[in-house]
């Protein structure tokens, strides 16, 4: 390395000479890995050498691919696994599943999909070779289908089959026919040889005598109807329509720390672990945060899935929202806003889960109008962990601190982060009871600060306890092992990999005029 100056070498210059060259072999391997990943991208333009018969043989290629897929499917051994868990209400299982407890019920499927059953509905679940099949015998269901990594999710009634890859829709099976309405995404409805594609807000009935209700009326029975409708409104939003707070007060926390606080009756307070000074207050008429950064507001507004009020640090680490000046991550703001009458309706549980699409849009509008925020989506390749399992994993290993094992008081919920009593600061547990890996993996990802790709192949429900030292510190020795060792105790392993994720980039943001 040559230093191109004639000054006397000093600190900076000697350090500049320390820029290192990468190991050639590592670089060559990285190049090949990168090219393989890029070739798997849908937009990848192939190299120019293309056989002249390419165009003519597309059908033949498709036929061969279909034959291979068929062969793979035919040779795959049948799976024996638990397909669902009841997460709300009561369901009785005889030959089929019945929500006959007088109330609706919600089933969670292994892939993360949720099925909301109207009271009196009846269905059965079967594993098809190309996905999961829900046979709806009677009643109404709302399906929130997780994105299917392999195959499809099917809903079948006596006269139609609905296939989806990832969406929210409602199906009704009546003695005279079936109705399907779409809330989000797209579904394909097949009736005999006729196939029709439905988009948000569209619906179809198999029998002309069946009355088609509006989607709002179709899902009115659901306790989560407001959430579904908000989703639909978001998708069908006309240019003139918008979700916005009525009145907004924004002040720098430095000038006004905590002033004006005091929620109305019935306000929910959520401990804000994301840099705020005081709990977040949200009730149907008011939204208030104190000492919260714009970055956290952006994560709440643009994030998908749960709002991890207590885990923003990990989300920051995962870099789902990047860009923007430093002040959006450091300067705290007090924001109080009036929510338009009758525009929000939610339960505390929905609030905790972040199941509030309309509130999210209101925060988006506020960010756009007062902070002049503009955002852009971006696909990124990021470092991730691959989670793999030994044969027979996960084992039920009992750490000393959970001496009761399956009878331990901590072993009571499905999946949760937990800190057992008597644990040294920095030691944490993860409990998975009767849980699907799709529920465990997001928690693990937040704990390690990277996306985790589930490659365990575990389809059924699992029980295990992890107890580990999340911040090893020689000055404070712990009896808990590091996470890698704790995972090893239950037969799981994290190893380096890469994955492609969708992220948000802050393109523009300005400090607001305070009021």
């Amino acid at each position, binding site marked *: 390395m040559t*230093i191109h100056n004639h000054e006397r070498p000093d*600190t900076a210059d000697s350090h*500049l000479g320390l820029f290192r060259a990468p190991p050639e072999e*590592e*670089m060559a391997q*990285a190049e090949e890995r990168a090219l393989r990943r890029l070739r798997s991208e849908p937009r990848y333009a192939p190299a*120019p050498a293309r056989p002249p018969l390419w*165009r003519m043989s597309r059908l033949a290629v498709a036929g061969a691919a279909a034959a291979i897929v068929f062969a793979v499917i035919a040779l795959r051994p049948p799976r024996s696994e638990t397909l669902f868990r009841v997460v709300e209400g009561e369901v009785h299982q005889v030959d089929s599943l019945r929500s006959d407890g007088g109330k609706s019920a919600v089933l969670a499927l292994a892939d993360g999909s949720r099925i909301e059953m109207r009271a009196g509905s009846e269905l059965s679940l079967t594993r098809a070779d190309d996905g999961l099949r829900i046979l709806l015998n009677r009643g109404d269901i709302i399906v929130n289908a997780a994105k299917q990594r392999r195959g499809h999710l099917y809903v079948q009634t006596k006269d139609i089959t609905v296939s989806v890859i990832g969406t929210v829709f409602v199906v009704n099976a009546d003695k005279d026919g079936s109705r399907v309405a779409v809330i989000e995404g797209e579904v394909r409805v097949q009736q005999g040889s006729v196939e029709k594609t439905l988009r948000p807000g569209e619906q179809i009935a198999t029998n002309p005598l069946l009355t088609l209700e509006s989607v709002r009326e179709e899902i009115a029975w659901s306790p989560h109807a407001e959430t579904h409708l908000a989703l639909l409104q978001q998708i069908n939003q006309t240019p003139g329509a918008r979700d916005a707070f009525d009145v907004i007060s924004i002040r720098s926390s430095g000038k006004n720390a905590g002033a004006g606080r005091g929620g109305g009756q019935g306000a929910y307070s959520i401990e804000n672990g994301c840099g705020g000074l005081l709990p977040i207050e949200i009730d149907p008429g008011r939204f208030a945060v104190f000492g919260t950064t714009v970055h956290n507001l952006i994560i709440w507004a643009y994030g998908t899935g749960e709002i991890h009020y207590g885990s923003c640090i990990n989300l*920051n680490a995962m870099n789902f929202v990047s860009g923007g000046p430093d002040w959006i991550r450091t300067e705290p703001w007090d924001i109080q806003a009036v929510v338009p009458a009758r525009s929000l309706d939610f339960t505390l549980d929905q609030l905790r889960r972040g199941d509030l699409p309309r509130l999210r849009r209101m925060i988006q509008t506020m960010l756009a109008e007062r902070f002049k925020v503009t955002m852009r989506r*971006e696909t990124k390749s990021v470092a991730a962990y691959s989670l793999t399992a030994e044969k027979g994993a996960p084992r039920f290993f009992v750490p000393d601190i959970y001496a009761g094992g399956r009878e331990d008081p901590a072993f009571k919920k499905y999946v949760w982060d937990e800190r057992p009593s008597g644990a040294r600061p920095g030691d944490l547990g993860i409990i998975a009871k009767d849980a699907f890996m799709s529920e465990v993996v997001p928690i693990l990802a937040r704990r390690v600060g990277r996306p985790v790709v589930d490659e365990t192949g575990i389809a059924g429900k699992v029980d295990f306890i992890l107890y580990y030292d999340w911040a090893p510190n020689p000055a404070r020795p712990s009896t808990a092992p590091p996470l890698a060792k704790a995972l090893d105790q239950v037969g799981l392993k994290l190893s380096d990999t890469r994955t492609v994720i969708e992220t948000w980039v802050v393109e523009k943001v300005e400090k607001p005029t305070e009021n």
Partner: protein
Amino acid sequence: MSTAHAIVEAPDQDIAVVEPDFEGIFREHYRTVYRTAYGVTGSSQDAEDVAQTVFLRLLHGRSLRDWKNPAAYLYRAAVNESLTLIRARKRRPRDHDVELFAVPADSAAAGSAKETHRRLYEAVAELGRKAAEILILRYVHDYSDAQIAKLLGTSRGTIAVSLYRSRARLRKFLRGRL
């Protein structure tokens, strides 16, 4: 450096169109991007991460036909992405489990060298993007003032001034941390 192009048969039309050859561009520039990212971050993993992101963005976000100077675009993207990564890491609390998967602590000497490198990378991250671009071209890729000026489309004088100022800033920054 020239842009790679390929003749590609348009599948649904009976004409041939000229498309830039992504794979050719990838092969031509990947190592420059990787070396740049490695120079800024000092880490193979980060360099791979940055290079992957830069080419993914290229694939998804830009029309290849519009490229006049892919070398400059890719180089700038590599520097910017690397600086963003370093700055984000500085902001990120270092109390997460990622650390648990790191290799065991180095010996004292290796640790000292590692610390020196870390300080250098942090110091570079304190520079403006343009200044960092020029600095890395000089000290990682060993370009002359004239070569840098040609690549970035500016004058040799601008490059010399930028390098002088960057060195002065780094000196100040590093002294404050020694």
